[in-house]
């Protein structure tokens, strides 16, 4: 296998993916910490402040210039929710040394810059530079306010928020303006120092790498300073998500739109080990592609929608149905969707549907190794769910799913939340 992982100093997990499918090497560091209302905004702000400067490259301009000299290496960072964890993600992508117009050493330099950005930030008087914190607060404020700009994304986020009200997964990954305003540079720096001693740290290196990464890490001062730890984070997988059956919650919201957005959040009340493979196939039949029940019945047969699909969120054992519809068609579209859920429970789908849906899933699973960040995300997902399964095994598990299992799972599916954005 081209994937290996090992512990460095009980503080960091190193994952190496050796592949020559790409012209680039991709390095990623992920910091994971439990999602909490009091921390989400701090996490989002911290990620933004860290990219502003390091002790060696104190300004963003200097970082960018350095990366440009490395043939346009690109740095990116952001926050994501994965289950009940908040993940701060930092990526650096460079050309592989093999494709440079003239020989240069980029691997060690890349890893050192990435580590510096996270563990050796620029400080003044033992604290983050107040100017950096202030301007990132302003920026983050605009990002939070811009939540409404993309109506598709907004309605999806709002449905999740309502479905997981007062639970970690319902939190907005960028945080909240009222919390943001109160954060001081000192508070942020204290939070940071505490966080990096406790959080889970994973480093991924993917591409054509002939260097010994462990040796590079052992020489790096930032790594030498890291404390050993039992990282604080939450393990989420299908067996950990216990649901209660309840009447669907209906939420309607008005905005200036010509197209309505209908989002349904579904609970899967099945905590059996490996039910995630059954749920994947169930979801693909329901709303996975152009052959799915939703696409065929909501869009094609009745012309009720331009988009109609569903997605399975493995870590929360939930499914979200998303449609863009004409506002006046709300009831008709909702009834049609409910009919499709009933059809699934009654087993009104064919072996052909199952086969098609498996093909759809398998082609995306087989494509994992063709995109560098997707491959990293796959292995990191396994790391957080605390269960390792190779891509080959994954494929076999999907192939094994049968109709009876899908119908049994369908009987445990309940609508939790119906969200509608209208004019």
């Amino acid at each position, binding site marked *: 296998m081209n994937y290996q992982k090992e512990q460095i100093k009980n503080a960091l997990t190193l994952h190496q993916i050796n592949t020559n499918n790409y012209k680039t090497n991709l390095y990623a560091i992920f910091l994971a910490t439990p999602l909490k209302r009091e921390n989400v905004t701090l996490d989002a702000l911290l990620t933004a402040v860290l990219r502003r400067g390091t002790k060696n490259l104190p300004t963003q301009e200097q970082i960018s210039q350095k990366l440009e000299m*490395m043939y*346009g290496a690109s740095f990116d960072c952001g926050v994501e929710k994965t289950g009940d964890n908040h993940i701060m993600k930092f990526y650096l992508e460079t050309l592989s040394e093999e494709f440079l*117009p003239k020989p240069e050493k980029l691997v060690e330099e890349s890893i050192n810059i990435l580590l510096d950005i996270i563990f050796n930030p620029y400080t003044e008087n033992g604290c983050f530079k107040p100017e950096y914190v202030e301007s990132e607060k302003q920026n983050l404020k*605009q990002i939070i306010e811009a939540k409404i700009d993309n*109506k598709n994304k907004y309605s999806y986020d709002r449905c999740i928020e309502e479905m997981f009200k007062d639970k970690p997964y319902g939190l907005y990954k960028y945080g909240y303006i009222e919390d943001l305003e109160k954060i001081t540079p000192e508070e942020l720096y204290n939070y940071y120092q505490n966080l990096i001693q406790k959080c889970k740290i994973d480093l991924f290196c993917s591409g054509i790498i002939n260097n010994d990464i462990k040796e590079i890490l052992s020489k790096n001062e930032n790594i030498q300073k890291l404390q050993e730890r039992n990282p604080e984070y939450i393990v989420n997988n299908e067996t950990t998500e216990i649901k209660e059956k309840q009447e669907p919650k209906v939420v309607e919201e008005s*905005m*200036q739109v010509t197209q309505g957005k209908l989002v349904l959040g579904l609970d899967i009340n099945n905590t059996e080990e490996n039910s995630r493979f059954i749920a994947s196939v169930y979801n693909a039949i329901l709303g996975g592609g152009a052959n799915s029940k939703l696409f065929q019945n909501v869009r094609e047969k009745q012309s009720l929608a331009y988009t109609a699909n569903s997605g399975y969120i493995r870590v929360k054992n939930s499914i979200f149905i998303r449609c863009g519809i004409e506002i006046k068609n709300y009831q008709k579209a909702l009834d049609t969707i409910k009919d499709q859920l009933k059809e699934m429970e009654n087993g009104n789908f064919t072996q052909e549907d199952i086969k098609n849906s498996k093909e*759809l899933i*398998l082609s995306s699973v*087989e494509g994992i190794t063709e995109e560098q960040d997707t491959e990293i995300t796959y292995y990191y997902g396994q790391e957080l769910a605390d269960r390792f399964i190779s891509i080959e095994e994954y494929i076999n598990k999907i192939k094994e799913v049968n109709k009876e299992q899908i119908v049994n799972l369908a009987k445990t599916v309940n609508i939790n939340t119906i969200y509608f954005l209208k004019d």
Partner: protein
Amino acid sequence: MKIIESSKIKEKAYVEQLENGLTVIIVPKKNTKKKYIIWGTHFGSIDNRFIMPKTEEEVFIPDGVAHFLEHKMFEQPNGTNSLDTLMALGIDANAYTTNDHTAYLFECTNHFEEGLNELMDYVQHPYFTDENVEKEKGIIGQEINMYDDDPSWKLYINAMNCMYKENPIKIDIAGTIESISKITPDVLYKCYNTFYHPSNMIMVVCGDFIPENLIEEIKKRLLPKENQGEIKRIYPQKEDKINKKYETAQMEVSVPIFMLGFKDMQNSKEEKVKKHIAIEILLNMIIGKSSKLYAKFYKEGLLLSEPSLDYEFSNEYAHILISGTSKDPKKIEQGILETIKQMKENGLDEEHFERIRRKVYGDYVVEYNSVGDIARMFLADTIKGVQTFDYIEQFETVTKEYTQEILKSVFKEENEILSVVNPIQN
């Protein structure tokens, strides 16, 4: 088969023009599992007036036909839809329409041959009836509504309106509810018969293939067609001025979004690739991530993230677009114009130029990471009359002096425009 090559990035492309006029480009990629095929016709939203080669009849078509035709190609006489058939094989299939071309594509890991059967079957078999054309109007009407709600689309259309008085680039790709209401099966067949002739089409395939074998597979699946003469496309006279400096709209956004443009008055003899590279270097020097101007705007909270930088060109239009989000677009405009003025007066800084040159080189190489990017790039470039590897191979010929000339000839204040979408005032 002609072989073109880029030694720097170790890639090759096999190019062949078949007897019926179809151009086939194969880019082999050893050891990749994904395969990508795209079949495009040189027919986009700007082609709204033309002379049919066979009958010499001049045809005017309603806005949105190329896109409408794209939607309708999937439908088969037996009631099936080719998109579904491909999806059922686990093949990710799609189609899209741009200003200057329409493309049908799929990506897969398995079942390439079955996919090829289906793709080459449906693209060669149009099936339009009064009934199925009417039904499609409902679906496309929804899509048009979606665009109408999209502030970034409005921003773009207004920018085009600033630059051009009469140029078909101003047409919405999907048309309007009103224009598509005029579409009939007859219009669709006329366009299909004219533009979907092999001599007006290009097929690009990327993946782990033996080119000689693949080309035979493609030939086997092509239907015989009579040769066709050149399609005469009629476009409005090119304008040597912009239409207006500024246009603004109000929509549901939280912060204003802007698009600043420079209309480029091209001439037909220039080297397109070299010019394109020089423009990309200049845009990065002016307002790219490491520029002084971006640092200043970021510090002042005027820009949250780097603006996106584009150069769009065909024979009928060419323009530079700088777009982003800012609470004060006018200040962004002033800053950009002032920086350009200084760069013209003081000349380009040696160190800065070298750094950005390296960065832009890296950007071109990264495109070769994905079979889909490679295939789409070859298709779009071939339609424009450009050879894709030239971006890598001609890179070294773009000198500081040449780049300076382009700065003077393209980034002119009199050709600059600004489009802004502001939040709705309560």
